[in-house]
Structure formats: C-alpha cells, structure tokens
C-alpha cells in the first residue's frame, strides 16, 4: 500500500521556461538511468531478498525514488510550461511537441519510450545488489552531465540535491551488499 503526501521531497520552483533543458532532464524521468527505472528495479527486487535489512532497504529506497520521479516530472513540467512555440522549435523539441504538446511522458528527450529492459531483477541477491550500486553511480553521472548543461540556479539546485541522493543510496546498498555476503557465508557453515 502506498499513501500520497501532497508535497515534494525537495522543492522545485523554476520560474524561467527552458525547453532545451527540459529535453535533457526528461531522461531522468523515463530514460535508462532515470528515477522510474530505479524505483521499479528496487520494488521488483525486494520480493526475493533473504535478509530483513535488504527487504527494508529496497522497499524504502524504491519508495524514495518515486518521490524523485515526481521531482523530475515537476522540473520538466515547469521548464515546458509557458514555453513559446518559437522556444520549443529553437530547442529542437518540435517532434516532442507534435506528439505530446508540453506534456510529461516517460521517455528520453529524443522520444525513446521507457522500457523495463533498462533494469534487471535477476533473482540472485548479490548480483542484484551489485547492479543497484552501479545504477546509483550511473544516475549520479547523469545528474553531473545535466549540471554541466544547466545555467539556471532554480534548475541547478534540485539537480545537485538529486545527485547527492544517488551517493547516499550507493552507500546504503554497499552496506547491504556486505550483509548479503555475510549471510551467504553463514549459510555455508551449516
């Protein structure tokens, strides 16, 4: 069961439309290392975790990723809302506009739709937790690329915050990976 809390985990208040930036940020909504892939990865993997710490961590980080999914959607919405047709054309977003107007849709900026093929749920706890650590690093790298492209402080601030969350999640998954190895070694003794 999930409840909705009517606020963002961290504020997004973008005043200046920028469809060029929107076309890059949307990748963290529906792209290969985006927040939707992260959430679905962890929430799918939690079912086969053998120790309580791993079940809780995947459940809770999978839930937090949904809050980040909402923040990224909010960023794209605010970057597109109020953008003129001229700005959208100049940003190379004409094809997006033809199919979606200024709507939010889980895809990359070039229109490649979201797919579950972006993540794995292998069934082996150590393989999956290792994938999760790599996923957090890839998301961190993506946020750093987005920061290179951004010039508006209202965009930079939430991007920096989201980048830091990837680092914390990487750390927590590393701790869980150690516990999974300990669990596996304990089982071998009997």
């Amino acid at each position, binding site marked *: 069961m999930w409840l909705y809390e009517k606020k963002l*985990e961290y504020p997004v208040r973008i005043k200046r439309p920028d469809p060029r930036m929107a076309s890059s940020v949307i990748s963290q909504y529906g792209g290969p290392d985006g927040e939707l892939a992260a959430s679905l990865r962890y929430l799918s993997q939690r079912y086969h975790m053998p120790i309580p710490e791993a079940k809780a961590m995947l459940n809770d980080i999978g839930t*937090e990723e949904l809050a980040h999914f909402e923040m990224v959607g909010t960023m794209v919405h605010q970057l597109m809302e109020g953008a003129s047709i001229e700005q959208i054309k100049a940003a190379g977003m004409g094809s997006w506009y033809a199919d979606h107007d200024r709507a939010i849709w889980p895809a990359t900026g070039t229109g490649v739709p979201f797919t579950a093929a972006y993540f794995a749920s292998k069934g082996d706890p150590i393989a999956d937790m290792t994938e999760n650590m790599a996923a957090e690093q890839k998301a961190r790298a993506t946020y750093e690329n987005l920061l290179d492209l951004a010039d508006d402080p209202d965009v930079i601030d939430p991007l920096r915050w989201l980048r830091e969350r990837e680092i914390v999640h990487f750390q927590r998954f590393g701790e869980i990976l150690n516990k999974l190895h300990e669990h596996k070694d304990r089982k071998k003794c009997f």
Partner: protein
Amino acid sequence: MGNQKQMLLDRIRAYEFSAIELNLYLDSHPGDQRALNDFNVFVRQIAALKNEYERLYGPLINFGFGPSGHPWQWINDPWPWEYN
C-alpha cells in the same frame, strides 16, 4: 500560496528529510541506539507539525491519514508540481 503555509511545509519537509535519512541508515544499522533515538525525536516533531498543517489547510496525506474541513479540502490547488 500563502507564505505561512509555505513556511510550515518547508519545516515539515526538513524534519521529514532527516527522518528519511535516519530510516535508510537504520535499515542497515538496526542496532544503532543513538540513531534510533534521533529518529523517534523527529517522528514526534513531524506529527506535531503535520497536525498543525492539517488543522489549517486540510489533509497532507490522502486515504484517511489526515482530516478535512468542509468542503473536501484534498482537491484544493496548488498541487506539489504547481508551486511556481
């Protein structure tokens, strides 16, 4: 949105973020008594602020986790993505 409402929401957000951080930390360090004490302090602060917010502005959380005045306040704008 009113300044008062925004300030209250920002305080809830700050305390809740601390609770999220401690929650994830406790998931991998369930025996850490000091972190647990901090977590429980934040739980009480969040509950008090949430009650104050809901008394003034209606439910913060849907599906029965916050009371509403009349008429049904849950549908009131702005939604979180509209704080522009």
